[in-house]
Structure formats: C-alpha cells, structure tokens
C-alpha cells in the first residue's frame, strides 16, 4: 500500500459520504423537480421518473450530434427516447460517445422545436407566422417549383444545405428536377484540407485514417480531435490508449490550450499559418539526416527525391523558428523522433493548419512528411480507408454495393458556350470559362455550383464555395426562382452573415424561401415556409464513413420513435414535392413506406434486414485490414483483356478504365490518382492559376508543397493581432446552443488572450473590449479595402498558454433565435415558443429546465448566452480552392469597460 491509503480507509470515507453501505446497492435516487405546469406536463413527468431498463427497449441508430456520425443506441420507454449510449458493435467508435450525443434528446423534445408547417404572415423576417397544413404548403411550393421547371429554367432552384447526411437522397431530387445548384458548406468547413489529400491520393481519399491504435509518434498541426474534429470520436480512445499504454509521443502545435494540446506529450504555441513552414523544415532535417524512406519514395512518388531535396534546401529549422516561434532545436529533435519512429509515425492536421490563405500549401507540406518517412498505408502510420458509400470504388473491392433503388435520375448537362444558361453569364465569366481546359468545361455548371474563379473547388468533386453564394446572388450572377435552406445556419454562421440575411430578406433576389429544419433557427426566421423535419431520432439514413479500425463498415440510422407533431422526414417531403412537380420527377420517388426504400438500398448486404436493424452495423469481420492498398495486386479476372502503357505503366481494362499500374513487373492497384502514383508534385495548381489570372508566384499556384506568409500577416504592427475561432467539445457549429445540457457547460464565448497582450494594451482580465476586424489583403473577396469588416464587443479572459499574437473566440454562441436556452433569455420569447407546439405536443416538449432554470441568463445574474461575431468576419475564400480562411483575421483591440 502506498501513502497510507488502505481499502479500509476508502470504506470509511464512503461511509462518511453516506451514500453507500458496505453491503451493496441502494434504492435508486429519483430527481424531484417542481410540480408540472399545465404546459410541459408530459415533459416534466418524464423528467421526474427514473428509466426502467426492464421496460425500455434499446434500438441502434446513428448519432447526428455533429458530422462524425457515431453508432449509438437509444433507450426508448413509453414511446419516448430517454437515453443515448454508444453502440459497442460500431467498430469505429468502439462503443464510445461524446457529450453531444444526448443532445439529440434535447433537440427532439425542445419547446422551440417546429412541429407544424408554418407560413409567414407579413414581411419576410418579421417573425409572424400562421400554421398551415402540409397539403397547403406542399401544393403552393410544388406549383411554384413546377412553374420553374416547365419554363425551362430548372437551374433557378437553389437547394442549399448545411448538414445533409441523406447520402444522395437530396441530390436525387435536385438531379431529377434538373438543377445543378445543390449548394453546400464544404468551403466554410474543410475544402483546404481535402484538396491536398485529393491532390496527393486522388478523389477517393479526401480524408485519411491514421492508424492511431498502433502509432508511436504523432505530430499534430493544430488539430483538436479530443474536442472537435470530423471523426474525432473514432480517434480519441485509440490516441489515449496509444499514449498512456503504448508510450506514443504526441507533439501539438496550436495557438491556444485546447484539450488536445493539453493532453499532448508536448505543446508549442505557434504563430497562425506557420504550420507549413515547420513541416518543410522538418522535411529538410529528415533529408539532411538521411532518415527518409528512399525505397518507398522512388517506388511511388511522382517527383524525384533530389528535386524535393533541392526544393527544401532553404527551409531550415532556423528559418522556421523565425516564422513560427518554435525553437530550431525542437524542430530538429521532433523531426528526427518522427522519422525514427516511422513507419509507426503519422501527422495529424485539420482546421488549424488549413484555414488560411496558405492553408492548402500548409497541408500539402504536412502530408509530405508521411510520404518522406514511408508511413503511408503502414501499421501505425498514415493510412487510407474508404470513406464513401460502397459502389465498387477504389478500395471497396469485394464489398457489397449499397446504393439507392432504381430508377436514378440522370445528371444535369454542363453549361457549354452557346447554351441559354451560358449566354446569361457575365461576359468576363464567359471569357474565362471558354478558355478553360476541356476537362473543366465538361463540368461547368454556372457560378453558384462551379465558381469559375475557384476551379479547384470543383476539380476533384463539387466542394463549391458556399460563402460566395449570397454575394454572387446579390451581384446577379445567378437568377434565383426558389431557394430551399436545409439544416442551414448561414444567417448566423457564415462569414459576413449580415449579407446572407440581407439577400434572404430581399424578395426580388429570393422570390421564394423554404426552410427545412427542426428548430426555429436564424435561417428559418427568414423563410416564407418552414417545413418541420423529423429529427435524427425519427428518421432513416444509410451511412458509411472511413474507419480508424481500417476495415470498412456500414451503419443504419432508423427511427426510434415516430416524428413528433406533424414533423416529417425530409425524404417524404421531397417525394411529395416531386409528385406535385411531376413531369417525370415522380418516377424516381416511387415508394410509400420509407423503410421499404432503405431495405432495398441495403439489399446486397449479406445479413437480413431484421438483423441489420437489430445490430445497427455491418462489417465483414474477415476482411483484411486496409494497409497498403496501393500494393494490392490487380486480380487476374480484372486483367483479362487489359493493356499496359509502356511509358506510364498504367494498366487499362478491356473497357478502357484505368485499374492499376505496372511496378517492377507486377500489376498493382497503385494510388487512386490519374497517374496511379502519389502526387507530391501537382501541376493542377499552376493550371488553375493560369486559368483564373492568379499570379504564378502566388503561394497557391505552386506545384510543389511550398510555404509563404498570409499577405496581411506580413509586417503585422505590434497593436494588431490575429483572431482565430474554435469549436468546443460540447457544441457543434451553430445548431447546438439550444441543447440544454451542453449549453449549461459552455454558454459564453469570451475573448481568450495572453496576459502579456493584455498588459501591452492596458487591458485587465475580465475587461470588456471591442474587436475591429480588417479585410484580407490579396486575391480574395473585397481584398485590400481599407474599411473594416465590422466589430464585436466581448469580455476578455486571460489564458497563459495562448500564443501572444493570437486572440481566440468560440463561434457557437450569441444566438437571437433557437429559443430561451440558446438566447439565455427567459423573458423574451421568439414567435416560435411555445406557440409552435400546441396541446399535447406542448406538453411533450416544454420542460421546466427551458422554462425556468437557465441560470446563466443575465436576468438571473449570469453571464448570458455569448456574443455573435460572424457579421464581423470577412468572406475570405482561399484562391483556387475556395476554403474559407477563418483564422487569418487581423484585429485591433480596444478596451471599452
């Protein structure tokens, strides 16, 4: 026994606490809340009764608390979901969940939940609504969509989503309708991170699956998988086990003390956007020390190693120290440690490195490190595992096909010169597109879907540039006849969100706005119709994503309960709209029961539908792990009739498809790139620069991974700082602020600042400051304008582990809709509450917490619900790829109180 603690001591302490006897279990404690009021009676009754697990039933489904989509189970008792837990059968999560999963219960039984179709009364955005029937709403909307289609202008339907996990159902609708304008938020999010991966590894691998369970060394450039990272929940346990049990070493470069930085073996505060410089200096060290995996490089990489050695000759650790602040000796030591641990070594990066003017190049430099040490596809290294639905794609060899039932609609045709749509484009756009290489002309669909200034936003696939949608509509680049917002929070969460609201309110720009959502969001508040969606606890979806266990799997989302009120799944809404539009659309939506549609979707999976529903997940347990997919031989049956190109080694099937590459006399799969090689050198960046007029010396035009500064960070004055934003582990984007337990934990978003920064500016901890945000300097929307973008005012909190040149604010908060929990406002109610829920449904949703116990409300002496800052953040797409440079913002800071 150590330090005098014995089991007897522990028993005595337990006895003193009074809650447990030595003899065993006690009777369960029951929460005693206030007596139920007339509204919320059912909700309060549920809140005051313990879950009876002998009566409750567990149903597996897929979480929708963020974009990771973990397998979960929901416990259902008396027709109500009571609890969400991990599904141990999910091979990716290994049965784990995060704090957000139970938010699904909050958002399903929430007083501001929209339970009936609503039609606006009075001016758009005035907050006045009348309840209408589904037939009335769908008849009107369907008639207006039909008119657009019959007029031969289907492209005037814009379907803009924020989160769509129907895995192709909404595109079935837009394809059948004939519009290419199914817009998204990829550029708001991760375009800059995906482009480098697709450049290196091909369209199939826009995301990697590091073998974290077996790794010995991780270099993390600004990623935060412990809190907020797509797939983070698949990584957390593997990483912590590797570090605690396996002795793995993790180095994190960050700007603030995130949870990931805090649990890392080492944390270095770094200047924003310096990640690529650090990575290139590490490449320099690895080559200098002779620690590269030459055999791997020469076998697979499309550029000679000597060319890269010459390229990084000037990228010394001393040079990188000057840019990043990381001492040169540490850069050397870490590079050597990484290379010596290889192949069980991997990089990790996400928003921190990518959301900058130089973010695409930062990530190319980071990804090159894994290539240099040969950890690609190796145990403990940087692995690739399929992340798309199973349709016989690269890496999916031998998997059953999981695809929507026939008949699927065809795709809209591209906008070629001479077509009506093309001739309506502004002249400079026509000129630019007409000069594009043919492979881009063949997939150009107008300025909203395929913005011509950002060809790399649609080169690999349609990532688009969501933050330019509202400016482009305002500028008249695309006439809009009808606009559907689907789980979209642009009015709150987009950069320069005020512009989104201005455009949405303008009926001459947006004649019809339909919002499909579950909560009265800032976006729904600006609609003409609000159609209530089923929540993720009430709907079907097919799902597959990349597994960090390196073996593909599929998961089924299924309803745990019937939709509350008159909510309907989006699939049913779109089917019913398609039937009203008619003209052949209805043929693609020929189903009555949604379950039948999904049963057919999963027809080829080799277990029964009942078993899939019971377990929630399917995986072939005998399938080999996805190590070194590039080294897999092409099977003999695929080689029948195939030809080999003598110059390139490419193997083409009898049907003409490229299926592999000849390497040392063997027919291997190679990488999923056009060359079947790993493309460290990619001329597409130069091609895109030439096609758009971006100067060829711009960092974004470089064909090898290169570092250059963010233009507005050069010679940054002493009284200017970089504002970054960040996500919390209890929140997701702009849609979680009304989830009561999560917002109880994080409801405010102060400005985090280093104490030295405060001292320099004469600011004390707790003071209120106004931040003024300035426009970026080069080659982006409104670059170089002198006038600031905007300001916001918030309280300061000092954190010693901030980088002194950075201030950081979380962007989840500061809502003016989504109800009392999100607004921390017990007095004012939006039009949504509780008038949307009537009678029995009001009883089901309006529990006492939301009505009475928001303790952080200012009226209760609390700090309130945070400050909205997105109106002040500039629209800032990175050249060519278009990813939003969220973390470049230059600010000045002034004390106001």
């Amino acid at each position: 026994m150590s330090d005098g603690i014995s089991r007897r001591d522990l028993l005595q302490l337990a006895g003193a606490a009074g809650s447990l006897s030595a003899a065993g279990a006690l009777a369960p404690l029951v929460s005693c809340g206030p007596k139920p009021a007339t509204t919320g009676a059912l909700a309060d009754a549920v809140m005051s009764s313990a879950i009876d697990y002998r009566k409750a039933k567990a149903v597996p489904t897929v979480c929708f608390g963020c974009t990771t989509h973990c397998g979960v189970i929901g416990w259902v008792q008396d027709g109500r979901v009571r609890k969400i837990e991990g599904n141990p059968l999910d091979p990716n999560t290994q049965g784990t969940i995060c704090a957000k999963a139970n938010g699904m219960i909050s958002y399903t039984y929430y007083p501001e939940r929209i339970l009936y179709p609503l039609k606006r009364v009075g001016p758009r955005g005035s907050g006045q609504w009348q309840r209408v029937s589904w037939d009335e709403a769908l008849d009107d909307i369907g008639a207006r969509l039909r008119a657009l289609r019959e007029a031969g202008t289907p492209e005037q339907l814009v379907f803009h989503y924020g989160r769509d996990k129907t895995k192709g159902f909404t595109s079935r609708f837009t394809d059948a309708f004939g519009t290419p304008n199914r817009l998204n938020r990829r550029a708001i999010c991760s375009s800059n991170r995906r482009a480098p991966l697709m450049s290196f590894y091909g369209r199939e691998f826009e995301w990697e699956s590091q073998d974290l369970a077996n790794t010995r060394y991780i270099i993390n450039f600004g990623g935060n998988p412990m809190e907020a990272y797509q797939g983070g929940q698949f990584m957390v346990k593997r990483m912590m086990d590797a570090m605690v049990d396996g002795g793995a070493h993790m180095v994190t470069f960050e700007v603030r003390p995130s949870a990931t930085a805090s649990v890392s073996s080492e944390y270095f505060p770094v200047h924003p956007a310096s990640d690529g410089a650090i990575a290139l200096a590490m490449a320099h060290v690895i080559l200098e020390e002779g620690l590269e995996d030459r055999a791997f490089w020469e076998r697979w990489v499309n550029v000679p190693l000597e060319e890269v050695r010459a390229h990084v000759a000037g990228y010394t650790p001393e040079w990188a120290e000057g840019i990043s602040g990381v001492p040169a000796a540490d850069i050397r030591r870490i590079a050597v440690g990484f290379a010596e641990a290889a192949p069980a070594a991997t990089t990790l990066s996400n928003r921190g490195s990518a959301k900058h003017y130089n973010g695409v190049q930062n990530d190319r430099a980071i990804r090159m490190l894994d290539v240099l040490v040969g950890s690609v596809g190796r145990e403990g290294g940087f692995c690739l595992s399929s992340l798309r639905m199973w349709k016989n794609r690269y890496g999916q060899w031998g998997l059953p096909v999981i695809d929507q039932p026939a008949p699927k609609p065809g795709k809209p045709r591209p906008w070629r010169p001479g077509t009506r749509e093309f001739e309506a484009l502004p002249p400079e756009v026509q000129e630019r597109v007409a000069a594009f290489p043919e492979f881009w002309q063949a997939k150009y669909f107008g300025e909203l879907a395929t913005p011509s200034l950002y060809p790399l936003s649609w080169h690999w696939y349609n990532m688009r540039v969501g933050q330019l949608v509202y400016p482009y509509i305002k500028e008249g680049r695309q006439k809009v006849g009808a606009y559907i917002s689907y789980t979209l929070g642009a009015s709150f969460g987009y950069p320069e969100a005020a512009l989104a609201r201005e455009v949405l309110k303008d009926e001459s720009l947006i004649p019809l706005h339909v919002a499909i959502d579950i909560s009265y969001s800032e976006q729904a508040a600006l609609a003409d119709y609000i159609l209530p969606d089923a929540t993720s606890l009430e709907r079907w979806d097919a799902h597959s994503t990349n597994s960090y266990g390196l073996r593909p799997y599929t998961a089924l989302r299924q309803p745990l309960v019937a939709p509350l009120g008159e909510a309907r799944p989006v699939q049913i809404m779109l089917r019913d709209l398609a039937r009203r539009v008619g003209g052949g659309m209805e043929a693609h939506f020929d189903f009555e029961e949604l379950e039948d549609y999904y049963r057919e979707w999963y027809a080829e999976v080799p277990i029964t539908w009942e078993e899939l529903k019971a377990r929630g997940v399917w995986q072939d347990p005998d399938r080999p792990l996805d190590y070194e997919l590039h080294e897999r031989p092409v099977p003999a049956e695929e080689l029948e009739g195939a030809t080999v190109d003598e110059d390139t080694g490419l193997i083409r099937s009898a049907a003409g498809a490229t299926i592999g590459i000849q390497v040392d006399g063997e027919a291997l799969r190679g990488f999923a790139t056009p060359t079947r090689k790993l493309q460290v050198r990619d001329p597409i960046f130069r091609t895109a620069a030439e096609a758009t007029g971006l100067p060829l010396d711009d960092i974004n035009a470089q064909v090898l991974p290169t570092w250059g500064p963010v233009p507005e960070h050069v010679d940054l004055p002493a009284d200017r700082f970089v504002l970054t934003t960040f996500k919390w582990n209890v929140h997701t984007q702009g849609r979680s602020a009304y989830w009561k337990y999560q917002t109880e934990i994080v409801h405010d978003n102060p400005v985090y600042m280093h104490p030295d920064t405060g001292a320099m500016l004469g600011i004390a901890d707790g003071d209120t400051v106004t931040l003024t945000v300035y426009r970026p300097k080069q080659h982006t929307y409104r670059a170089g304008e002198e006038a600031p973008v905007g300001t916001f005012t918030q309280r300061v909190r000092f954190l010693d582990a901030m980088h002194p040149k950075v201030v950081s604010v979380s962007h989840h908060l500061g809502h003016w809709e989504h109800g009392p929990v999100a607004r921390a406002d017990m007095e004012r109610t939006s039009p949504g509450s509780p008038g949307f829920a009537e009678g029995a449904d009001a009883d089901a949703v309006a529990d006492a917490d939301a009505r009475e116990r928001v303790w952080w409300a200012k009226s209760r002496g609390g700090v309130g619900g945070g400050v909205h800052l997105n109106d002040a953040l500039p629209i800032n797409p990175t050249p060519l790829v278009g990813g939003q440079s969220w973390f470049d913002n230059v600010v000045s800071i002034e004390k106001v109180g």
Partner: protein
Amino acid sequence: MSLPWDLSDPIEPVEPVMVVDLRRCTGCHACAVACKVEHAVPLGEFRVRVRWMARPEDGTMAFLPLFDAATCDYGANRRSVGMQPACVAACPTAALIFADAAEQGGAVDAAIDSGGRTLDRTGDARGDVLYRGLEGWQEDKMNAGVALHPDDEDITYEQGQGQGRGA
C-alpha cells in the same frame, strides 16, 4: 440474438470505489451529460461535474471529474440491471472505472500501486473516489467542488469572472 446491451446480473461490489485515471481524461464532459440525462438532473444541479483548470506551470488545461457526495449513488438504478453507472459507460477513454476495493489485484490495487489517492480536501465531493494522476494544485483550486462557486476559474460553466490580473 444476444446483443451487448442485454440486461444482466446486478453489479454490487463489496467495497465500491470509483477509480479515475486522470491520465486518460480529456475533459470531454460525456460523463456529466450522461448523468444529467440518466437521472433528469435539473439545470443548476450537478451529480458529476468535470473541472477545467489551467495548470500553474504552463497554462494547459487539467481536468478533474468530481462526484457529488449528497446525490451521487454510483448509478444504482443502472447497476441493478447489470449496467455500469452512466458516467462510466459514457467515458470514451475508460478514465472512469467503477471498481471493487475487495478485488485482489483489481483496478483499485493498480491505482493505489501507481500512487493513486483520494482527495485530501473534498468540499462537497465524494471522498471515496480514487484518483490516479492527481496534481496537488488541483485541490487548491476546487472551491466548493461539484457545486458552482463564484471563485471558480474554469473556462467551462462560465460565471463571468476574470481574475483581475494585469493593467
């Protein structure tokens, strides 16, 4: 078909102890939210709460789950049907282990042999929780413990205080 969530025999350790391996805790709050939902704990009341406190030496965050002595019963309702307490089941890194001190060579022994200890200063928190990896300064900054306190410096559960440093 047997499934992992099928109910089973009650979990009734002879000498119940919650072991917390702070080396594995990432401050994710999954335990806190799971307990809230499991037991319908009203806003403003807490049975388990994870403290986020900045390390004096370097400002990185250290996490400390605390269990309320008055209201936490280590998930008795769930244990009666063979389920782990909600917090333990929710923890994604197995930082929480509901163990039996009477079990020879079990999690309690392993924690004690690695220097694990209970809190010297408990406030309103359960004193029978065995922490592995506790940093001494954490008890100095606990204040009340589980209940919110105006002197709390956590950056979660914000109550609007700064520390008045500087300027």
